[in-house]
């Protein structure tokens, strides 16, 4: 189902949570709403679900105005960050809930419900847990059951609010791939909220970067990462070094784009090593520019490190900043400047 969000605004008392947002979500898309906390991404998601009312604007589902439609009629599957599984029901009963509460006329028979629930349990690979209670499950299992429960009512849109936020890193990694696979199988319009740029880049077809209740940029992971429209998007999507020059103009560069050499070359800048730490296959080096005294971080892979290293505190290196990006104050086009 395609969703069109037209000039939507929402405030909580004095606080303006969503400011005049416009967004077109094509049917079958896998979209990430990415932003820091307080950027309005969860509010926007809840408005699509109907859990939050609109102050102004409209939300259309497949061209039909859904702005004032009650939640239960929207056919959305919603997955909460803290799972919201019903504690007094078994896993089976949790998944069957959406089918059991249907009006008598369209309610499937007991046998049909049972088959559907077991199909879903098989789909999320947790058939053996049917008779357990939520308190007996791990976080990752709970989130999979929450998804199965949402899918039981055959929603046309799947909405996930920080679905992996409460899970540990390893489980999170697994579930990312798993959710991506599920989206590919079902091809259902999916919108998920996250503050983790890596998660958004890894999973989504389209990333919507939000800040202070507004959309900063909409684009593919490639577009938003390599062609950010402004400094906020650039800074939010990865590690970044900031340099302020004499005209008070700020230029940015990502740590992995800085080339480090043992000897001076072209317009490279001498820098002193402050700290070296290796993170798996990468080595992060904190340096101090000798010309401006600015601190910055460079990131190189282990092979490269073996070429120039080993390094210790106080070693002198030459850094070239070939890819510095400057955003004009009001300008939205990225400019590439060469030092």
């Amino acid at each position: 189902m395609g969703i069109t969000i037209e000039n939507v605004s929402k405030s909580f008392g004095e606080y303006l949570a969503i400011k005049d947002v416009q967004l077109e979500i094509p049917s079958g898309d896998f979209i990430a709403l990415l932003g820091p906390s307080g950027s309005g991404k969860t509010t926007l998601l809840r408005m699509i679900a109907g859990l939050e009312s609109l102050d102004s604007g409209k939300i259309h589902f497949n061209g039909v105005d859904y702005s004032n439609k009650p939640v239960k009629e929207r056919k959305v599957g919603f997955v909460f960050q803290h799972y919201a599984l019903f504690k007094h029901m078994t896993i089976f009963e949790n998944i069957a809930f959406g089918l059991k509460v249907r009006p008598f006329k369209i309610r499937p028979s007991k046998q049909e419900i049972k088959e559907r629930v077991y199909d879903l349990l098989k789909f999320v690979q947790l058939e053996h847990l049917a008779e357990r209670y939520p308190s007996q499950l791990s976080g990752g299992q709970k989130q999979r059951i929450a998804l199965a429960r949402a899918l039981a009512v055959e929603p046309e849109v799947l909405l996930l609010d920080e679905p992996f936020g409460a899970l540990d890193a390893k489980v999170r990694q697994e579930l990312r791939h798993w959710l991506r696979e599920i989206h590919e199988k079902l091809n259902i319009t999916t919108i998920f909220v996250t503050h983790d740029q890596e998660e958004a880049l890894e999973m989504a077809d389209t990333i919507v970067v939000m800040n202070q209740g507004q959309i900063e940029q909409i684009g593919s992971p490639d577009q938003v990462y390599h062609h950010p429209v402004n400094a906020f998007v650039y800074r939010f999507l990865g590690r970044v070094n900031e340099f302020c020059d004499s005209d008070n103009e700020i230029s940015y560069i990502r740590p992995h784009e800085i080339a480090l050499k043992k000897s001076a070359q072209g317009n490279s800048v001498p820098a002193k090593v402050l700290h070296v730490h290796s993170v798996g296959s990468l080595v992060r080096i904190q340096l101090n520019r000798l010309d401006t005294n600015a601190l910055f971080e460079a990131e190189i892979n282990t092979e490269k490190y073996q070429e120039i290293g080993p390094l210790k505190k106080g070693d002198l290196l030459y850094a070239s900043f070939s890819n510095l990006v400057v955003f004009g104050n009001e300008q939205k086009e990225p400019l590439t400047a060469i030092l």
Partner: protein
Amino acid sequence: MFNKSKPHRVLPAFGLSMGYTIIYLSLIILIPVAVLFLKATTLSFSDIWQTVTNDRVIASFKLTFYTSFVAAVVNAIFGTLIAWVLVKYQFPGKKIVDALVDLPFALPTAVAGIALTTIYAPNGWIGQLFEPIGVRIAFTPIGIMIALTFIGLPFVVRTVQPVLQDFDRQFEEAASTLGANSTQIFFKIILPTLFPAILTGFALAFARALGEYGSVVFISGNMPMKTEIVPLLIVTKLEQFDYAGAAAIASVMLIFSFILLFVINFWQWRIAKKHQVA
């Protein structure tokens, strides 16, 4: 409890605190109860049997359990409602209503009894409204139920209120995204969550009602076979210096109450265990 390989505890004085608990419970509860049973055994078994199967005693047992049960059920329903209103809505005077709930605890029960009798007597404010349609409240089991409802009111409100306060809205929201309407959300999601707390409140109100004396003696009229409750019968026996008889009746009362509370607690424990196993 008596684990030999002692795990590290935050409070090291397990022996001391456990000892204190046992001594305290013994002094306050176990020893007096044991003496009660001991006193009852000064009668022969046939005497005890005769005392407790006396028609008047049986009638008062039935009346006490019946009226206490009805009062506890009424409190379970309306206490939950009051807790709901106090938690879910904001209205002027909410703090006062909240404070009013505890009043039955603070008021001497005899005062409550006299006040209720004055109002519900055939010529009282409310009693006179029912008199023409042939319903008498004071001096009948209905009056007893009203007094017992009054004294048991705070229990259910105070046990349900915190649970309702902690109830996370996301469960209601999850149910509504799955297509449930508000009636279904209440009966399938909210009520089952509150049920253990309602049950605790019910058990407390029920137990309190079984032993209530002060407020009931004024409103019940104390007619043998009709409106005479067990605690009154016990006092009557004591006034006739029939200590052993009083102890016998009290012992039977205690056994029944204990069984009932045990069953309710067991039921509640089963529910809690199901939901909270880690």
